[in-house]
């Protein structure tokens, strides 16, 4: 668990971060979001001491980060930055092996780990011998993430890691990273200014403005209880729809079908359809409800507007 307590960072007259306190749960992905200059990048850097706060403390599992040597601390925290910052004179293998080498791992163990990570990132093993210059933007980002994960750190700091990639690749990277994170359960602090990205990945979102955390809660709660007008304004009018992208029909349909029911004349939606798409189908069908079918084509329930409302309210199928 990461505990940020009363952190303030001043640069002369300018206050970048103002008395911020956050508790970031183990295995959770917390997104720091806000307009540019809100202090999110400064805040994330206080965790691995790339920036020392003017006031306040950061603790990891109850230990002040200032208690260990700064290099030791950083070797235990994965770090991915927007511009990747791959070492141009290192091969992909050497880039990924950076921290294991600093930690003095044996060659074989390092090599095994490099291959494991290339597989995990969906990069062909032959990439190990390439140089960063030969990689596309998306490939470079994958290597950047692999490098951060190399020594299997419990904590991952990601500062706009997919910011420099084109939208299509970004969505792919987010998807891949999401499924990797589901498996690895790292404690991730993720900075972005992209609401869509935040909604897609976050367990919790800390919305920042002018150095302060305006609201820190789950993505769903931002709709129900926005702390101030700025919240809804920043998240945008489509935020609820975006939120639906986090869930599939399986999370929210009403289980009101009797065994053996067959789909009616109208349209049916499979259970694994993203809620946002299902809603779209519902609107397009001109009906009030759609049958939900499982992978065998059996009707298991219905999907209607109330299912959607229940989801946003943390209702029936919500993970809440």
């Amino acid at each position, binding site marked *: 668990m990461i505990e940020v307590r009363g952190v303030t960072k001043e640069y002369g007259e300018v206050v970048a971060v103002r008395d911020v306190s956050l508790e970031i749960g183990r295995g959770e992905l917390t997104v720091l979001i806000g307009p540019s200059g809100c202090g999110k990048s400064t805040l994330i850097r206080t965790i*691995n001491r*790339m920036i020392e706060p003017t006031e306040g403390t950061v603790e990891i599992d109850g230990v002040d980060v200032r208690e260990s040597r*700064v*290099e*030791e*601390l*950083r*070797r*235990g925290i994965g*770090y991915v*930055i927007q*511009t*990747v*910052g*791959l*070492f*141009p*004179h290192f*091969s992909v293998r050497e880039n990924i092996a*950076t*921290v294991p080498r*600093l930690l003095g791992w044996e060659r074989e163990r390092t090599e095994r780990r490099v291959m494991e990570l290339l597989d995990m990132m969906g990069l062909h093993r032959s990439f190990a*011998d*390439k*140089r960063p*210059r*030969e990689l596309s933007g998306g490939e470079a980002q994958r290597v950047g993430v692999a*490098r951060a994960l190399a020594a299997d750190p419990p904590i991952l700091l990601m500062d706009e890691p997919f910011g420099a990639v084109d939208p299509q690749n970004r969505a792919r990277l987010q998807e891949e990273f999401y499924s990797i994170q589901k498996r690895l359960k790292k404690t991730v602090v993720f900075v972005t200014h992209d609401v869509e990205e935040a909604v897609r990945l976050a367990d919790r979102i800390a919305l920042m403005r002018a150095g302060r955390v305006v609201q820190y809660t789950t993505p769903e709660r931002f709709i129900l209880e926005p702390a101030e007008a700025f919240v809804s304004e920043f998240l945008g009018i489509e935020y609820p729809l975006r939120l639906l992208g986090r869930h599939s029909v399986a999370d929210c349909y009403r289980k009101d079908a009797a065994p053996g029911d067959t789909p009616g004349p109208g349209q049916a939606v499979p259970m694994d359809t993203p809620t946002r798409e299902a809603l779209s189908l519902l609107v397009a069908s001109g009906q009030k409800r759609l049958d939900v079918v499982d992978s065998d084509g059996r009707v298991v329930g219905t999907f209607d507007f109330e299912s959607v409302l229940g989801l946003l309210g943390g209702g029936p199928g919500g993970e809440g």
Partner: protein
Amino acid sequence: MTDSPLDKVTMLGVLLFGFALAVPAFVTYRPSRIVRGEPLSALESAGPAFWALVALLLVMALAATSRGSVLRGMPTALVGAVAAATVVWVVGLAAQGLVTSEAPYARVSLSAGFWLALFGAYLVVVGGLRGYGGAGSAALSVGIMPLASVAVMLVAGHLDDLSIMREFFNRRGSFLSELSTHVTLSFSAVGAGTVIGLILAFVIFRYVATERYLFFFVNLFQTIPTLSFLGLLMAPLAFLAARYAFLRGFGISAIGWAPAFIVLFAYTLLPVTSNALAGFRIVEPRVLEAARGMGMTGNQVFWRIQLPLALPVIVSGVRTALTQAIGNTILAGLIGGGGMGTIIFLGLAQAAPDLILLGTIPVVILALVADYAMKGLSEMLSRSLLRGSQ
């Protein structure tokens, strides 16, 4: 490749070459070393071999003026290289014809026509290589061919009757020892200057506040004219040598190798320091951020990231310093420090142009070779550092 029917560089080379064959002074003939010489044209001195040069002139002219012909590009460069070698061969023949048993003390010196012809041929090579479109090993071999031919002629004794070779045979022993002194002096000064320059760059990089002061000194050295610098060192070195016997033991005194070494060393500092510093600073901030964020210590960031990335730039700084030092080492000859300067200044004192040439040519070749080698090293480093392994 240009679309114009004439390649200007090649054309200029051909014109110079043709002019050189016509000027009255291809070589200078003197019945003995000390009397005034008389100029001889290429035709007068070389006899039938002259027509070989004329034939080459015609081929080069054809190459320069024919648009899109097979002669353009690499073949042109080759003809130029052959012409350069032939000019040297012809001048050797001329000397052999002029220095006979009736006139054993006669001297044949290289004159304006010879140099012009050589320069013209060089331009044809350059123009041809431009048309060929770049450097590479083919270009290198075209450049080496005339040098190798001259080397063969030297070994075979074809050029022995030239006055410059006479001067060489008269001082063979001292020539070789001065040459080795020259090389030792310039390389060791640049070596020491590189080490100190790198340390200075590192200090400035780490402690930016020192930049003003350190660069003040480094720049100061560079602004003192070489000769004045040697003069300025005399008093302090004389004082130190008189005061401390161990310094005298090292051979340090107001004249000799010590002041020359110090001057060459000081001149090395600016190019090495400023290049190394630029090299450290061009490493992108995001790369440094990543390196620190991964948990590298300051030293690890320097040795694993900054130094390797800066290496090509550093090598090109050393290249500047080395080329400059090889030339400047000539001045060591003025203060008893040895080197090719000794021969050159002797030639000046005796008004013996061939002796001056004998001292100068090796310096020029040495500087060119060092320059080329360092350039290659720098390019090789940046290639292997940044490009893929394939």
